């Protein structure tokens, strides 16, 4: 009897297929309208000019949850890329994401909260951000960090903007041409202010900064210099020397780094950098087509009031118990409006949590081992490819987990051949630097087994048999 009532009696509501997540029935809606004192919803729209008011929609064009999942499965399956052995890097790296990450980030209290405006009701998220800041400080060796920025590119831009504020009236920034070309373009976007000058420092044939040229560019109008670690070509620059030159010129060094490098090589603080920025994606975030990732920014103590975005600080409650709040808010847009240090409001909190869990899952010793594992697998592949590929000036430069290789065949043939073997061989550098025709940037992480690396080498070797056309 009940079933029949469902299918016949309430045809209007029960037979509906699509989703709307609205908990009120027509009955409740009508009770609410009665309390308001109107007969229909349309009356509530009386302030909207009639000519722009749209008519009600009668055709339900939504989907059920099951249909929605099927649709998304079909789209995901169109992405054949997930079946390839992937050697693409260049700012987005395939690492193992610990299972614990999604177990933590999917917790309702984190996933469905917003910016901790009510600190007493948000101690969980506030402490997480505080711990993220602590982890970024530990990795970079610098004194203070913020709650996160959008991505590596915007972190570079914000790092330069804060350096410009701190070094007033200097108005010039120098950017190494070996910084990720995407990052450079985004920086240009953020520094489009008419008073700011941006100049680019050329690199030598081995991809490292032309230090002679750089020395000449460093004048007393330079506020900041941006370099990348490892640089876009995977190489380690003479950063300590560069930081000294910058310091002597009265400017600040902004160092953009893959944070995993800090598990093996010198920290930003040991190198003498003033501001450390980058993307923490390698810890805890899957590739997911480029986002969400998580930008980080850390600096020396004396620059703290120039930091952009949210910062969490420790304090006490009225009983003297430790707690956390958003702090130094006088820098921010909701208080300072057009004079704020940045316009950023919503940042990447949940991605920062993912990254924090990734960092802590490895912990102090694990991060060193992970970084060494990355280096050693890249070194193995580089060594094996030496006899198969052409020698290049890049070969002599120290590296971390990305290497540069020039095959003896044109890049189009290389890509076709490798893809036939189920391998995406690396980023073809020609798309970024036309003179680096047929060069590939190859990222090797802990996700590549000996078997996979040997398959790469075999595939490279069999290139010889490929026709040039």
């Amino acid at each position: 009897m009940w079933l029949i009532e469902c299918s016949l009696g309430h045809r209007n509501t029960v037979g509906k297929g699509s989703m709307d997540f609205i908990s009120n029935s027509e009955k409740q809606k009508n009770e609410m309208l009665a309390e308001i004192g109107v007969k229909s919803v349309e009356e509530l729209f009386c302030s909207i000019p009639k000519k722009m008011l749209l008519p009600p929609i009668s055709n339900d064009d939504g989907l059920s949850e099951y249909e929605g999942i099927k649709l998304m499965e079909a789209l995901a399956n169109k992405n054949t890329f997930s079946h390839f052995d992937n050697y693409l890097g260049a700012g987005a790296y395939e690492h193992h994401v610990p299972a614990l990450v999604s177990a933590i980030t999917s917790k309702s209290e984190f996933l469905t909260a917003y910016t901790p405006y009510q600190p007493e009701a948000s101690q969980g998220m506030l402490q997480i951000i505080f711990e993220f800041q602590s982890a970024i400080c530990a990795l970079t060796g610098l004194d203070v960090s913020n709650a996160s920025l959008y991505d590596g590119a915007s972190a570079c831009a914000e790092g330069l903007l804060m350096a410009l504020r701190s070094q007033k009236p200097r108005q010039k920034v120098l950017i190494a041409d070996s910084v990720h070309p995407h990052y450079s373009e985004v920086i240009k976007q953020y520094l489009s202010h008419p008073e700011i000058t941006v100049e680019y420092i050329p690199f030598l044939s081995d991809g490292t900064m032309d230090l002679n040229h750089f020395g000449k560019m460093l004048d007393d109008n330079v506020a900041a210099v941006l370099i990348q670690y490892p640089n876009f070509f995977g190489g380690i620059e003479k950063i300590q020397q560069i930081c000294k030159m910058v310091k002597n010129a009265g400017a600040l060094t902004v160092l953009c780094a893959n944070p995993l490098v800090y598990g093996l090589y010198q920290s930003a603080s040991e190198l003498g950098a003033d501001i450390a920025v980058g993307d923490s994606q390698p810890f805890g975030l899957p590739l997911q087509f480029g986002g969400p990732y998580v930008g980080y920014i850390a600096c020396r103590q004396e620059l703290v009031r120039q930091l952009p975005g949210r910062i969490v600080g420790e304090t006490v409650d009225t009983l003297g118990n430790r707690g956390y709040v958003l702090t130094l808010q006088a820098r921010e847009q909701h208080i300072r409006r057009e004079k704020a240090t940045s316009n950023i409001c919503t940042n990447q909190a949940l991605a920062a949590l993912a990254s924090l869990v990734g960092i802590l899952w490895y912990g102090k010793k694990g991060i060193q081992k992970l970084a060494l594992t990355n280096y050693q697998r890249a070194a193995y592949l580089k060594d094996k490819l030496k006899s198969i590929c052409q020698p290049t000036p890049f070969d002599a430069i120290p590296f971390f987990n990305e290497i540069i290789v020039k095959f003896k065949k044109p890049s189009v043939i290389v890509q076709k051949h490798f893809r036939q073997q189920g391998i995406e061989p690396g980023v073809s550098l020609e798309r970024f630097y036309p003179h680096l025709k047929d060069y590939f940037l190859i990222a090797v992480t802990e996700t590549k087994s000996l078997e996979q690396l040997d398959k790469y080498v075999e595939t490279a070797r069999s290139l010889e048999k490929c026709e040039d056309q």
Partner: protein
Amino acid sequence: MTKTLFEKSQTDQHAYSLPKDENVFKAFLPPEHLLRQTPAQLPEISEIDLTRHFSELAKKNMGIDTHFYPLGSCTMKLNPRVNELCASFSGFTRTHPLAPEESIQGNLQIISELISFLCQLCGMTAGSLLPNAGAQGEYVGVRMIAEYHKHRGDHGRNEILIPDSAHGTNPATAGLAGFKVVPVRTNSEGDIDLEDLRRLSSERTAGLMLTNPNTLGLFSSVITEIADIVHNAGGLLYYDGANLNAIMNIAKPGAMGFDVMHLNLHKTFSTPHGGGGPGSGPVFCNDKLKDFLPLPKVIKQNNVYTLVWKDAKSMGKIASFHGNFAIYLRAYLYVKLHGNYGLRKISEQAVVSANYLKKRLGKLFTIPFPQYCMHEFVVQADNYLNQGIKASDIAKRLLDYGIHAPTIYFPLIIKECMLIEPTESESKATLDRFVSVLEKIVAEILETPEIVKNAPHTLSVRRLDEVRAAKNPILKRVST
């Protein structure tokens, strides 16, 4: 108090595992002079302790899943779990942002179709999903306005008009983009003061940034006049889409006269708020501005999707790669589940719920704007100042009753302001409970105001000292 993980470190505890370290790899040693001197001072923790730590922290946080969360201008609606499920499909998570186009057709189709759908919903002709959050969307939009004037050789336009009720991100964005911010007054009806707008619009006006419905929850009945004034002065209209939840398939920003806009997908389209992001702030515009949209763009030809990375007229890049893809793909599923039909229902219910609450709360607080509101409204909680009770005290006391506080002290132009947005998700029963809790709090204010003044009493901490935090900033812990 939960100690930080940095204080819970125990030597040689660990959670990690790594693939087998083959002998052939061990031979390779990194150059000694580059090695880090002091290891990063990170804690050493086992997986069980890590897990418990975060479980403990979760208990100290309110979310929509656990509490009613009427945070005005933030649209705290249900986050359907089906979004999370689908975003975790390996076909999406394993795609590299520089992967060859033929191997990422699913991703490109999502981008292309979501742009088309949202364009149609907003009455715009083109768009980009690249901006990572609302504020970055604003920046893109304002930069496009700058490019538009530059390309027309109209170089004197260095001012952006912004109502005094606007979100702080609006003036911050205009300032970042190099514009002078000119505030426009709000009149006693909560709408833009047209006389003031006429006076301030000039050959220096690059554009006006406007939220409609505005941050008071009111739809501007003079929107056509506003658009005419700004357009006649040669400026463009920017729409801040933070409040789109009120008007989906009811009115379109394009039809109101707006030229460019952003949406907050984490608000209206329910990709989760994540404790403060990641968001997604796509930008849409009309034909006047579409050439300037950022790169890369997705185009469809003969049923194949391709990416355009270079375009002379475009403003260029704004994100490292393709923006927050895994966030906007959730919005894609959300609009597919609802269809245009469901989205209109959402807006209708959001407006009904807000007006219902507003009517009922009028008995407890001053209602500065008596007309019908849209999806949210402001109350002025200045009725109890004589008892020494401010809006922030009421907000803290709500937490004790298991309700997240509304947005307080925003917009800045309303005294003791509480901005309340119930969203369509909440049932009448939940709204009724909210009213009865506020009635109880008002009774407490009259009988035992100390309870309210010292709230909260039931959470993991009591009221926190924000002044102390800013005076002597402690911004990290070092591993011990």
